[in-house]
């Protein structure tokens, strides 16, 4: 890999860029930059930008990129900073483009069932807006204060992936600013598209390394009129997880199949200051069904409920109102924060394995705790094979933590490879996981990724040192 050289931003650059941006308060330099911009939500990767610019239009993004391109200044895009692998951390300093002010919903096209948005729109605002119009944007990552631009850049998944798929499945078109400042459009409102390589799909999941998304056309569905969740207590985690492949095999299609353990639920209760509606068992499956009437959904879930009882479930609890859903799903949504609150520091793995191996992986995570000397908590999307495991630092010294964490990571990713899994299901690779990506993919795959990067960004100014750049 070549040694890239970058220009360090000086006062002259700041003046020139200020002329492009106009409003002074949308540029932060040196001591004006808050510490937040040096890391993402997990904080393991840290590096400060020299300059933060908050553009309000694609033209401004383009003007900044043109300048950065001419002067070889590295540029890193950032949304809400809720990532977990350091994707938005500027490893070579330079400029952070904070896109959070580009947060307008531009158009709801009810004839084509599309929504056109700027990248800084928050997921929670987006879903509230479409649901007010009886429409539905299914991707449902736990972090609702993430931006849609961030969701696109990591191809975020979330809890409805079992039935509906992930962010990629709901992006029809993108407006992208290329590293040289050119503004291009990939895809569009069309439902089908066989017109050459799908460049839009290259941008999705590229974590800001190929271009900067300045507009997205999203696909919507009619809003299902009713949802019912089932909270299913099992006598053990093993029993719970072993039932998942059988549910999938039964051909019933819940929108979500999540698993959760008592310990994590208790952390969430403490974090939220609110009791969970059930405490009878060690492990639960949480299923969600949607449809257009209570009867239709009841018919769909009865089969799954009976199946779970045959497999040893202690009961099947029904959540059929907004209040009941909140008591369960609010806890589920708070798991990450709750676990974070239960320890001094943590790191995570977000691997995905074929669904039939979920059980093996969960059992493995549980079994290595003693061997590596770390508490490991896990919960996740049992229905799509995407497991989140959190290694907790607790009272370990930094040195000991690093040692044990690395050992745990090595073991877990090795197991994931053995089970034909992948390094990341939805959080991305960023900076923190690129070693594991290298180990899990063939050299050809890594070379192709870097080749694509070279075509888009020959000067390597967009978010360097990420994904396949080792």
């Amino acid at each position: 890999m070549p040694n890239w050289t970058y220009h360090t931003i000086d006062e002259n650059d700041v003046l020139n860029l200020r002329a492009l941006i106009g409003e002074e308060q949308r540029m932060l330099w040196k001591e004006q930059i808050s510490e937040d911009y040096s890391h993402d939500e997990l904080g393991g990767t840290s590096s400060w930008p020299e300059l933060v610019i908050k553009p309000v239009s694609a033209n401004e993004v383009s003007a900044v990129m043109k300048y950065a391109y001419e002067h070889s200044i590295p540029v890193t895009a950032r949304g809400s900073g809720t990532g977990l692998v350091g994707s938005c951390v500027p490893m070579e300093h330079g400029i952070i483009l904070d896109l959070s002010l580009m947060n307008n919903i531009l158009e709801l096209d009810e004839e084509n069932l599309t929504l056109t948005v700027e990248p800084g729109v928050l997921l929670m605002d987006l879903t509230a807006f479409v649901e007010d119009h009886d429409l539905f944007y299914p991707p449902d990552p736990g972090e609702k204060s993430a931006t849609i631009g961030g969701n696109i850049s990591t191809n975020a998944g979330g809890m409805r992936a079992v039935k509906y798929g992930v962010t990629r499945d709901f992006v029809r078109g993108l407006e992208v600013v290329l590293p040289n400042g050119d503004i291009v459009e990939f895809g569009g409102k069309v439902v089908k598209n066989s017109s050459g390589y799908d460049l839009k799909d290259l941008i999705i999941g590229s974590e800001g390394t190929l271009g900067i998304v300045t507009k997205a056309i999203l696909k919507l569905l009619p809003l299902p009129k009713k949802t019912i969740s089932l909270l299913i207590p099992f006598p053990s985690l093993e029993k719970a997880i072993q039932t998942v492949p059988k549910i999938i095999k039964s051909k019933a299609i819940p929108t979500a199949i999540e698993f959760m353990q008592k310990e994590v639920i208790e952390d969430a209760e403490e974090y939220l200051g609110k009791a969970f509606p059930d405490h009878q068992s060690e492990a639960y499956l949480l299923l969600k069904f949607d449809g257009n009437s209570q009867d239709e959904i009841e018919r769909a879930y009865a089969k799954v409920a009976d199946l779970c009882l045959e497999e040893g479930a202690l009961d099947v609890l029904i959540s059929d109102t907004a209040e009941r859903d909140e008591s369960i799903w609010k806890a589920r949504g708070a798991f990450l924060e709750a676990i974070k609150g239960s320890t001094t520091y943590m790191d995570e793995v977000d691997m995905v394995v074929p669904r039939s191996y979920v059980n093996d992986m969960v059992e493995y995570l549980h079994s290595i705790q003693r061997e590596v000397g770390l508490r490991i908590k896990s919960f996740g999307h049992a229905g799509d094979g995407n497991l989140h495991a959190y290694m907790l630092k607790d009272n370990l010294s930094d040195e000991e933590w690093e040692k044990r964490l690395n050992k745990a990571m090595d073991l877990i990713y090795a197991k994931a490879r053995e089970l034909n899994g992948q390094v990341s299901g939805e959080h991305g690779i960023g900076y923190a996981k690129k070693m594991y990506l290298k180990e899990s993919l063939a050299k050809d795959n890594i070379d192709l990724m870097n080749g694509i990067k070279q075509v888009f960004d020959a000067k390597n100014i967009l978010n360097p040192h990420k994904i396949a750049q080792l």
Partner: protein
Amino acid sequence: MNILVCIKQVPESNKVEVDPVTGVIKRDGAASKMNPYDLYALETAFRIQEKMGGVVDVISMGPPQAQEVIREAFAMGADHGILVSDRSFGGADVLATSYTLSQGIKSSGNYDLILCGKQTIDGDTAQVGAEIAEWLQIPSVNNVLEIKEVHDDSITISMDLPQEVEVAKISLPCLLSVDQDIFMPRLPSYVKKKATKDREIKVLSLKDMEDTDASHYGLNGSPTQVQRIFPPTSSKEKEMWDGSSAVLADQLFHKIEELKFV
């Protein structure tokens, strides 16, 4: 200890449509659910039952489809259900509703403890519980925050009063209206739902009451009438003020005065 919980079927959505002519809430066709506050009363009953034994029964007043919320209570663990239902009970105000329920309770047996939610989310009066207790001539407490002790002949609770929390010991039988969050309500069980799907619900009509005079029930027995129900207006207009705290306080006071809040 035998406990009776008063439950009501309410519209599922809070976007309730009101008939512009009669001012009555349109219930036909709208999806419905158990009044969320009643779930807290029901959970309180189960917790006391776990300690003291006895039965937890539920009573509801409404049209035949209100049996759905009684079935839901069965799925949560209730033992018996009573539906007070008769055409002549329709259109009842708070007084007639509490009278009808008290008549229904008298015809249903002897209960040591009657539990209600703090209010319903459709009528929102929070008065029916206390009025039932008046008709039954038993003590009652509203805004119950906590059950402290339960004995065969008394119950000790804490109640939320405007300025303080008061702890009181009440002799049984009595009626308590419990506050939200006293306990997290359990979820209905699919297993119990299947097991109770054919359980009989006792339906009480006018002829089953001690007082069978129709003029005491429904619209005829209601001294108050709803003139109009309308959604409150809401405004998203914002004003931003800058200034020292003394100036801002002055400005705020004049604004409140101007808006006739003081």
